[in-house]
């Protein structure tokens, strides 16, 4: 379904996600790719992202627990996660990732820990919102 063809509620929510800075242009790209051949493309991609990124989040967590001084590794994993989150247009998440990487560069472990909490928060928050959004879209079908 095109974004502008969604029923009221879903459309409203979609606009909110954009206006509030949760999603960026990339999400529009995904919507453009959705067609008859892949009618649920956007939802599939988002699901894929969340199932795959869980492992990356966990890896960062483990690294922060076990080898917190390994900033190179932390930066590495975060780089992957950031790249992945850019695929669905997760704007706020990306911003926190960048912040985390900056702390890694200056080897500020506290900064990393704090920012990582933000990353997880944004990650979960967007996930919830997108779930709700797709629920609305589904109901509208």
């Amino acid at each position: 379904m095109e974004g502008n063809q969604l029923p009221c509620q879903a459309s409203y929510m979609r606009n909110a996600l954009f206006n509030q800075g949760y999603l960026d242009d990339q999400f529009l790209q995904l919507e453009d790719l959705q067609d008859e051949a892949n009618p649920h493309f956007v939802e599939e991609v988002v699901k894929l992202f969340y199932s795959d990124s869980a492992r990356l989040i966990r890896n960062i967590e483990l690294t922060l627990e076990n080898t917190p001084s390994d900033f190179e590794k932390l930066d590495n994993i975060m780089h992957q996660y950031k790249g992945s989150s850019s695929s669905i247009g997760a704007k706020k998440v990306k911003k926190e990732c960048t912040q985390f990487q900056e702390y890694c560069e200056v080897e500020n472990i506290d900064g990393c820990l704090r920012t990582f909490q933000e990353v997880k928060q944004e990650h979960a928050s967007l996930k919830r919102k997108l779930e709700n959004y797709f629920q609305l879209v589904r109901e509208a079908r």
Partner: protein
Amino acid sequence: MDSCGFSSPRTECFPAGLRVLVVDDDPTWLKILEKMLKKCNYEVTTCNLAREALDLLRERKDGFDIVISDVNMPDMDGFKLLEHVGLEMDLPVIMMSVDGETSRVMKGVQHGACDYLLKPIRMKELRNIWQHVFRKRIHEVRDIEGHESLDEMMLRGGADLLDDGFFFGGDPVPGKKRKDVDHKSDDRVGGDSSSLKKARVVWTVDLHQKFVKAVNLIGFEKVGPKKILDLMGVPWLTRENVASHLQKYRLYLSRLQKENELRTALGGSMHSDLSPKDAAAGPGNASLQTLVSKSSKQSISLQHDNPRICEGLTKASPTPMAEAKAAEINDLSKSSTSSISFDRSFGQSSDAKPEPAIQVQYSWSAGAPPLQFKHEQKPQARAPPVGFKHEQKPPLRFKKEQQQQQAPLFVAEHRFDHAPVAVHHRTENKASDSPSPAATDPRYSKAKRGQPSKATKVESTAALFCIQPESPFTDCLTMDPILSSIWNSKTSHSQSLEQNLYDDSWHINAFLGTGSALASDYTSQYPPNPYLGTIDPFCFNGQDLITDVSSLKFPIDPVIDEGLYIA
């Protein structure tokens, strides 16, 4: 695949049907890119591991027009993949990354990337990738047909590529060109009659051997395209062909050198183990084994083994330019055009038979020193990083190689040694002798070095040999690509080797089995490892590989997963 000839549907509606191989370890991006490229009417194959991508490329020679790869991948650095593709298949490669730092982009360009895209990638950026394919073809045509008129050149290249009135179009290649094309196609595996394909110079084993020989004769420091070309004595080759190949070769050497230095720094002790043994010219198995097991444990993506081993060998042998030679070997493997992918099958030879480096050397002694290294490289390349045990395979090859070894420049043959073994076993399923022959094969020992990233080397070697596709065992191609490629290369190279291979390859059969049995064998042979997960030997078809990204080896967080999937 597109049909041969000018009237190929693919080329007629170019760029539609462009065959793209996408390599990215991120399943989300892989799915998105696949969809985007399909929307551009391109033929897409996806792959989430660099090694599998190389396997795929080697297996399907001329099966792709362009490769798009991410820079950061777990099993192999994207730049390395870039180099290999450039040297072996000479395909345009586009790099992708979320990191747009100038230094990274520059590195990409240096390694031969024809473009560098930043994630998130827009579809319009992908729409234009065909220009890289076109540009390369035009240049190739110009290179090869340098002496021909511009009209002729355009006719060959343009008719296939463009369907507009500017070019002549329609008329098939004149007889003269056809002859050139056929001549070149002799060296090619696929023998595609499309002039576009033929226009590209395929650096086969033979060709690369000549190249390396010429380089050695001239002296690496003083080398220049014109001199090389003169020495090579290949009439249809142009100075430009040689120049571009030389550039790649240099890049390859320099990278090897760096890795070599790194390697030496890491495992200097190994060298000492190896050198004395090598000098003994006897089965320095112990040292090699140690070396192999050490190196195989060290890192999956290390490609250093080769250079290191080369160094070790250098000590034993009077070759002045160890690195250059090693590079040559590596390069040779790279420049091969076959599609053998040794990554998986050879990485495990940590316990491989310890072949004394010396053996390789003496077998090569007849030839140029660099060749020696090459041999060594081959076995090493074979050892896949994953703790995989295909020891038997490598030894078999080497053994044959030694026997076959006539000229010093038969590096390619040696390399090829590794590959065919596996194939033979699969098809022939002959009980072979114990790996003792391997033990005597110096090359084999090298393989044992357990170079994790050798896949490239081995692959290239195998690739070098996959020249003639008229092997009676072409059905092998349906089997594991590694094996089939090995088989092809082998049969094409030397029939006499077959017998030996059969004898030696029994264990390979035991490991690999055939058909579906292979899968389970592989699982046992290739235990899931942290880097590569479970290696699926049959995942050589990118499409098969990525039918369901969720089935990839990523642990799925049940909580998150459930949460997201609201019924």
